[in-house]
């Protein structure tokens, strides 16, 4: 079935270092991929979305490229900021599938001074 895998539960980084959060997926059909960010005591918000192979959407300094050949949609940022500390979810939607949306287990990003 369709699924999303986020391998890191917790990533701790020093401010200024690059960020990379992993997301891989399994899907029978062509998927839509999303990254959501959830700051402490807030609701999740959409960060990025992509449906096109090798296209790189960007938002707030974050970017992610959907690579259908490797079934990946890793989230990256060149320089981490303290305010980036949050929970990040990768999510998958597949048109005409039985389940509307599947989330990965989430990666908590902790940026320290």
């Amino acid at each position: 079935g369709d699924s999303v895998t986020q391998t890191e539960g917790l990533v701790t980084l020093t401010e200024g270092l690059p960020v990379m959060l992993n997301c891989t997926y399994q899907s029978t059909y062509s998927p839509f991929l999303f990254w959501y960010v959830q700051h402490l005591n807030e609701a999740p918000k959409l960060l990025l979305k992509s449906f096109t192979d090798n296209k790189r959407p960007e938002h707030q300094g974050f970017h992610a490229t959907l690579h259908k050949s490797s079934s990946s949609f890793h989230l990256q940022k060149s320089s981490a900021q303290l305010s980036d500390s949050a929970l990040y979810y990768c999510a998958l939607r597949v048109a005409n599938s039985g389940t509307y949306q599947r989330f990965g287990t989430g990666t908590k990003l902790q940026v320290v001074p």
Partner: protein
Amino acid sequence: NAGVIQTPRHKVTGKGQEATLWCEPISGHSAVFWYRQTIVQGLEFLTYFRNQAPIDDSGMPKERFSAQMPNQSHSTLKIQSTQPQDSAVYLCASSLGGLGVNQDTQYFGPGTRLLVL
């Protein structure tokens, strides 16, 4: 625009009692979604409606959970005979809906934190 409104923000119930959670989507949005969030499971999709019709309830537990959307301005999630394992934050989201619903940006409400003792 008030965003997605969820009430109550916190609810404490005793084991075996019923809990009803309310969601008011953003005006003009025709798609409404329910999710459950726990530390262990993360975010789980439960169900969604489009133009008030149930479209996909594949994430809903088969027993005790039900959702309705009696009009375009509110949806309810009802849990009968609540159990401690139902304790979670229940999130509602809405989106424009329409033909591009799979690509839509969803806007989440603040959630209802349910605690079953």
